């Protein structure tokens, strides 16, 4: 099967790439488009490090085929900030030291954004279940939850 040409929108930009029909969207973002923000931690949808937002839904990009992205809307961590001002989540993660090694941070930021888009003032438990699909081995999640709570407050204009 010859490679497939895909036209899609990533962080608002219309982009094209050519990929094999069995290549994952994660590999296309990283190897075809050079967007290495999404990371492969497991390749089986169990760690969330590859999380992106596809047509408004939080998904693991390792469990989506590159060819499925035709005419879809993709949001990745590279698109979170607007120009040089960071998204409140990005700022709060730094202020709360909510990351140590940072490999899980892109995926967790996308999951937190998807959570706050649907539930602007979540309880601690809602945050914890909203982020349960993103493994972090360094922090024990404490400061991550506090950073999301703080960002939610700021986004609410509180």
């Amino acid at each position, binding site marked *: 099967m010859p490679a497939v040409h895909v036209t899609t929108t990533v962080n608002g930009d219309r982009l094209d790439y050519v990929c094999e*029909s069995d290549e994952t969207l994660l590999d296309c973002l990283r190897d075809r488009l050079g967007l290495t923000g999404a990371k492969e931690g497991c390749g*089986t949808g169990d760690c969330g490090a590859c*999380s992106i937002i*596809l047509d408004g839904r939080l998904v693991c990009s*390792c469990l989506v*085929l590159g060819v499925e992205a035709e005419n879809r809307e993709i949001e990745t961590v590279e698109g979170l900030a607007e120009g040089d001002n960071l998204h409140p989540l990005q700022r709060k993660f730094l202020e709360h030291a909510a990351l140590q090694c940072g490999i899980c941070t892109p995926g967790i930021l996308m999951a937190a954004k998807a959570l706050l888009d649907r539930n602007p003032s979540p309880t601690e438990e809602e945050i914890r279940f909203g982020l349960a699909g993103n493994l972090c081995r360094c922090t024990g999640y404490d400061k991550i939850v506090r950073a999301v709570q703080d960002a939610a407050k700021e986004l609410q204009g509180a």
Partner: protein
Amino acid sequence: MRYEAPVSLEAASALLAEAPAQSFVLAGGTDLLVRMKGGFVEPELIVDIKHIPDLQELRLDKDGFVIGAAVPCAALGENVELSAQWPGVVEAANLIGSKQIQGRCTIVGNLCNASPAADSVPALVTAAAKVRIRGRKGTRTVAIETIPVGPGKTSLAKGEFIEAVLLEKRRPRSADAYLRFIPRSEMDIAVVSAGVDLERDKAGVITKARVALGAVAPTVMLVEAAAAAIIGSKLEDKALTALAEACSAACQPINDKRGTVEFRTKVAGVLARRAAQIAYQRAGER
């Protein structure tokens, strides 16, 4: 590997009819792509059904709910009417994987992956759900429990695929509930699971019941004896104990990396009892 994205049911079933042996339907892909990554399957053809309008619909018509095969589980939880009438089914569907998985996986995919531990299947079985299957010669509708026949195997004939899951309207004074045991609080495959659907009369006596267990046999198990144990009762302790014992007796679990025979046998009864109490309490509120 050939990838096709038909936009009509006819095109899809035509593709699948003369498809090579190693061909698969793609909806959420959260099982299929894992098996591809692990090298367990190397598809020659993938038919992506997410571009067929009918399959993307979740609607309530006069006979009940029609849940299209391409509707992601997350959408089930967001449907107020479905969540109100079938909380057990929605609970089960929303336990699959994580938020990321929920955005993609479908209950038909969960059903056709035919894992003994599939989360949504016990709840759909207690709900007496049906599935509409499309083949070359048109469609047929069957009870959902006839689909899985063994780990990884379904009763679908070559070229057939499931269009929708059909759920009746919720009968008055009836409700369902689903519980599963996982060692963590999220992200796990059920070690053992139990679904209960029951109906009670005005006095609170249970008149109808269906009890199903997951991950304790090659396929989901409908346990008649467990239903019988609570019909005619108001879920007093004696009835609950009989329910738990009937479930444990029916189990034929295996020892594997996720759980032991003793554990699954005991906890099946515990979960069935707790699910029955939730369903009984929910039914009281309707």
